């Protein structure tokens, strides 16, 4: 089973990376870019076929490791 975990910064948390990318896109001549926020994805391969269990597992992985829940949100999708 293949799943994708997406981790993004919570609203209002400063994103220095996004800010720097915004600036660089401007320098490169891309007009009309409002804002950029950077996040992470984890493509995880899981053994087994029970999607409900997999989802629960992935959420636990996010809480424990993949996301820093103090400043980040996460979501789980299946391919």
């Amino acid at each position, binding site marked *: 089973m293949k799943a994708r975990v997406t981790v993004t910064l*919570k609203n*209002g*948390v*400063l*994103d*220095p990376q996004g*800010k*720097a990318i915004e*600036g660089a896109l401007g320098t490169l001549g891309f007009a009309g870019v409002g804002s950029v926020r950077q996040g992470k994805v984890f493509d995880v391969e899981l053994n087994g076929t029970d999607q409900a269990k997999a989802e629960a597992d992935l959420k636990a992985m996010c809480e424990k490791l993949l996301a*820093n829940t*103090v*400043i980040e949100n996460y979501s789980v999708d299946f391919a």
Partner: protein
Amino acid sequence: MIRNDFPITPELVASHGLKPDEYERILRITGREPSFTELGIFSAMWNEHCSYKSSKRWLRTLPTKGERVIQGPGENAGVVDIGDGDCVVFKMESHNHPSYIEPYQGAATGVGGILRDVFTMGARPIAAMNSLRFGEPDHPKTRHLVAGVVAGVGGYGNAFGVPTVGGEVNFDARYNGNCLVNAFAAGLAKTDAIFLSEAKGVGLPVVYLGAKTGRDGVGGATMASAEFDDKIDEKRPTVQVGDPFTEKCLLEACLELMASGAVIAIQDMGAAGLTCSAVEMGAKGNLGIELDLDRVPVREDAMSAYEMMLSESQERMLMVLRPEKEEEAQAIFRKWGLDFAIVGKTTDDLRFRIIHQGVEVANLPIKELGDEAPEYDRPRIEPKKPVPLAADDVPQADIAESILKLLASPDQASRRWVYEQYDTMIGGNSLQRPGGDAGVVRVEGHPTKALAFSSDVTPRYCEADPFEGGKQAVAECWRNLTATGAEPLAATDNLNFGNPERPEIMGQFAAAIQGIGEACRELGFPIVSGNVSLYNETNGRGILPTPTIGGVGLIPDWSKMARIAFAAEGQTILHFGAPEGGAKHLGQSIYLRDIHGRADGAPPPVDLAHEKRVGDFMRTLIREGVATAVHDISDGGFALALAEMAMASGIGAKATLPDGVDPIPYLFGEDQGRYLLTVVSTDADRILGEAKAAGILAEKIGETGGDVLVLGESASVSVKDLTAAHESWFPSYMKG
């Protein structure tokens, strides 16, 4: 969005950490009910973190003056003359609470904050240290905190580009619920180009510099003044994120700006950002300040006045500008990609006025905001003097095993895992990197001068006897600087304690400061800056009292500097400063604690006159160039000091123990004011003679050589085994 017209209820007042009598005082100052924004401003100015209301009375007792002191406490950092028109600017500050909540960002922004304090004064940062305390290694949170804090310190300092040359790491169950992150920074400036925060001149532009304002840390300074409880998670949204890239640009832009002559006054935005910085600049200059918040660069929509005034977004500064330089100043900031906005002006009415969307949301007397802050002489209970160990209470253990066990223990193991994550040599001036007694950085542009840095405190001593512990922290810092050949110049202190509203804690605090003061006076080592962190307490259990001392010393000629590694085989090892018959003091020692699980007895007393006499003598030997290696003796006593010198060089040593003494106290006693030193053998007798003449007890204890550490008949361990033990604990612990 938070409105400005909330009714001011007793609950709202309480939730701002203001006590009823403090609110009464506010009413007296304003003569009316404060607006919501004004309440926020008061709470920020009057919390413990900004107002020092519990500690001020005691801080005033510290010696802060000295021949070389240019600027003592009261500015962003202390300033000390090092001759030739140069000065060193330094301070230490805590970021304890934020680091416990989000270790990476908490530590990172702690480093960012202290660097800003230093370069706000016109100094280019040249050295950083970090003094860290964590809970017991087995506590479920500890590993996560260590990993995050260390990565955060490195993440910020490395990218900013300052070498981290020293620090401390300790573990103790008493820090389980409150880790400590004390960050130190030092910079170099010209004595005739120091910048201060005092505003001058009426009607001059007040300029906002650096990064944009978000909602980060709204209420952060208030958080730093509150005890934790189990609901800590609710406090999370206030976490600030550091941006070392912006800070590096801000450094370069500020230094260019200062060189351009545009700056009348400048102040970084730290705790309670815009509020504290603006009030401080105005009040110091006897001027009012008017701010128009519509001009503040913001990165979020619909920010209220309250939020803007309390935001703790990082990498920001406030300055009073020489108006004719506006264009030049703005061009500098544009070049570095930073915000530059005129957000207000200085006035002659001594009011602090805030305009937002055309409405005056605050109008307060600016001086009273600081001057009238509450100040408490909190009740305190004198700490009980500990009962000394009985003279015949000398628990025995196998010596070789004990040495190996201590070297591989959490508190004594090598810190390489930590400091290899820090850039310790950027700048190309690091002469001694972490691992020795003090970090040493050469003074750029001078052919021979260098500065030494050390950060020290022994919390278990402070817990047993806060007065002696306070003295010892200063003495150990002074000793570490001396051991490189440096003349200790001045110090900064970071006083981490529990809840000052508990009389026992207040008693500890007062006693520790008295000890620090006494030691600083006796050793000629004034305190020029510092920081107090109280309420380090969880569910009613306080941390160990931890008054960290960060010291700076001057080495006139670094080619004669001393290091801890043995320089060669066949050299004579001398032991200085021990009492007749060798060390005796086992109370509160590492040996007692980590080998026998005992935390009893009194800590070793510090005889300051002895400390000074021995230290001054060591410094003379080092500067004459006769000392080939030097190490002070601290935790773990003679045995660990000698082992550390051997490990640093890969060379063994053979020591002879005096006849008829019990080797345990001799090897593991922690009597203060002692050093180990090596010389070429032909110098030994002459030096011993000189020491005797100077009234210093000194003895020849052995010779360097081989690849084994031999301690008389008591122990014999290969340097390889010592090193393996010493290096193993941290990496294997962090692997989990």
